[in-house]
């Protein structure tokens, strides 16, 4: 019987296609969560009335921030789910090793991260259309607070965040696969850490942490920072899962 | 042939004996090609290695000869060898049964011989 040689890149490529075909649930959950986000955006309007020089101006602000926050959260949960037993064993039904399985999942998460960012940005239009159709009173102003900018900017900023949070979800998931104790340890560490970080001088450390990513004015630097952090998290996950057993 | 998987007889011997019967009945003539181990495996649902062992047995007894790379063929003396072999075997089994039964009945060797002689004579007269 002749032996088969397969390069890692070839296997990873095949696995990526396999995952795009078989993880249909990931895409349906994305659609549901973003529609939900859009709905919240419509409800969570902030209205204000001003009366100057005899005119009454009513301003209603609609924001798609909710969609973006929901998408980031979705990225975290999706990554976490993909580390669970059933998903890992899907890979082991066919040719794989732990590295190729990890890398193809990371590639998949990056790909859906990009798709979700695009759809999140597009929901901006969805909200605008809906607002127009239901005929909002007065002039509707639709904005995104954190990036009141062009579509492309929304896409990139969302993408950076989704990637960052997916990597966090992934490493958390792998840790839990490693030892179920992490189900208790991780939340304790995160919550405890947040409390500790808020303690000195009115959350200065926490602010520093957030401003490292979210006060970055340069888009390129922002993307660099988020993807580099994600790369670190993913590397840790790959190292940990290289010792994981399957079907144990 | 249906393989007797319960008997004391190993399957490869049963395979060998089946081919011997094919030769005796003339289904396989001298210099005919004998079924390959794979054909036999497929016919009897057995591992090809088991079938090969049966064929090797026949080759060792010079019932078949080997043409390298082509297969195994019925040898010239095949018929004679098989007849000779079966004679020895079946007679031995029958005699074993006789001795075993005689012992159970507490007969002496002398008594058995006498009985055999009687039988020999009467059957001779029949001919």
């Amino acid at each position, binding site marked *: 019987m*002749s032996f088969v040689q*397969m390069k*890692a890149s070839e*296997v990873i490529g095949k696995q990526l296609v396999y995952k795009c075909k078989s*993880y249909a649930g990931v895409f349906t959950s994305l659609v549901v969560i973003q529609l939900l986000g859009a709905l919240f955006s419509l409800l969570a309007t902030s209205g204000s009335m001003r009366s100057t020089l005899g005119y009454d101006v009513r301003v209603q602000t609609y924001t798609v921030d909710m969609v973006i926050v929901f998408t980031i959260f979705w990225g975290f949960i999706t990554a976490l789910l993909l580390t669970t037993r059933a998903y890992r064993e899907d890979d082991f039904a066919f040719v794989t090793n732990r590295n190729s399985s990890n890398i193809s999942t990371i590639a998949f998460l990056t790909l859906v991260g990009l798709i979700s960012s695009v759809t999140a940005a597009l929901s901006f239009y969805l909200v605008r259309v809906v607002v127009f159709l239901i005929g909002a009173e007065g002039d509707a102003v639709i904005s995104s607070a954190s990036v009141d900018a062009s579509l492309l900017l929304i896409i990139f900023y969302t993408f950076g965040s989704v990637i960052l949070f997916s990597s966090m979800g992934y490493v958390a998931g792998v840790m839990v696969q490693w030892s179920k104790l992490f189900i208790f340890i991780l939340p304790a560490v995160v919550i405890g850490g947040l409390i500790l970080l808020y303690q000195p001088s009115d959350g200065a450390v926490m602010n520093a942490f957030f401003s490292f990513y979210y006060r970055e004015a340069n888009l390129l630097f922002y993307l660099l920072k988020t993807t580099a952090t994600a790369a670190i998290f993913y590397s840790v996950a790959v190292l940990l899962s290289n010792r994981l*057993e399957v079907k144990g | 042939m249906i*393989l007797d998987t319960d008997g004391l007889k190993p399957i490869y011997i049963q395979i060998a004996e089946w081919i011997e019967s094919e030769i005796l009945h003339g289904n396989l003539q001298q210099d005919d090609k004998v079924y390959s181990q794979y054909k036999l495996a497929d016919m009897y649902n057995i591992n090809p290695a*088991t079938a090969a062992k049966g064929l090797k047995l026949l080759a060792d007894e010079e019932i078949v000869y080997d043409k390298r790379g082509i297969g195994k063929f019925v040898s010239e003396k095949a018929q004679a060898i098989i007849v000779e072999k079966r004679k020895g075997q079946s007679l031995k089994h029958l005699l074993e049964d006789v001795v*075993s039964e005689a*012992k159970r009945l507490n007969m002496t060797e002398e008594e058995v011989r006498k009985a055999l002689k009687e039988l020999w004579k009467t059957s001779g007269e029949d001919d």
Partner: protein
Amino acid sequence: MKAIHCKELTKQYRRKAALDGVDLSIDDNKIIGLIGRNGAGKTTLLKIISGMLRESSGHVEVFSKRPFNNLFVSANSIYIDDQMNFPPSLTLKELLKEGRRFYKNWDHDLALRLFEHFGFHEKESHKNLSKGKESTFNMIVGLCSRCPLTIFDEPTTGMDAAVRKDFHRALLKDYIAHPRTILLSTHYMNEMEDLFEEVVLLDHGKLRLHTTMDDLREYAIGLSGKVSSVQPWLEGRDVLDQQESGLDDVQVAVKHDYTDGEIQRMRLDGISVTSIQPTDACMFLTKQEGGGLDHVFRSNESE
């Protein structure tokens, strides 16, 4: 070439050694039966060989490579058990197509013909299959992948007798056409023994026996007769099992190292000599210590 080579292979779980110093060498292109009681370590061994589990100590090589995390071993082997996890969103037909994408030796024609033969429907989903159908589908994947090392762990779970028979035939036919190493664990040894070339018997995580099927068929013989006539023949022999029946009758399974002459003399002594089926031989070889089930009930009765 050796397909599999294990040296002092040990797998330790928290309290218990699932495998305990197994030395095993398996030639390529043979069909090997892996036999053993429940919990003997069969599945653990197969999962280590296919690179799913990591050995605790000792060495294991598949095609001269350590299987854990090895892409070459994964590309050239397949592990099929009754708990295959396939993505639920793909249909059976789509799963076969994935098999073709991943395994380069895959025979898609055969896959489709078997798919048809066993009455599967294109749109069916793996998770909705009955146990027997599931096993049948997994078997198709295992067979059509044509991997140089094909591992089946209890492949016939839930299959009815007719399908089992079909499976055995399909396995043999495909093996004859495309010889490869096939490692198969089963509890239905009597149905499959003719297919095996060799048998590996595990007992409590240890290798109990590794021999050819032909030798296993002659491994032990059964002697039955009067105690007085059987007893002398057991002197210095390896008695595997002994059952007394009636007043002074005894049935014994004993390791077969008697000469033809000795067997003949036994028969003349009025002892009936029978063969011991491989299944029974394996059962005797892996007998539990402490007297078996009758013993359990006996201590109950005495209370």
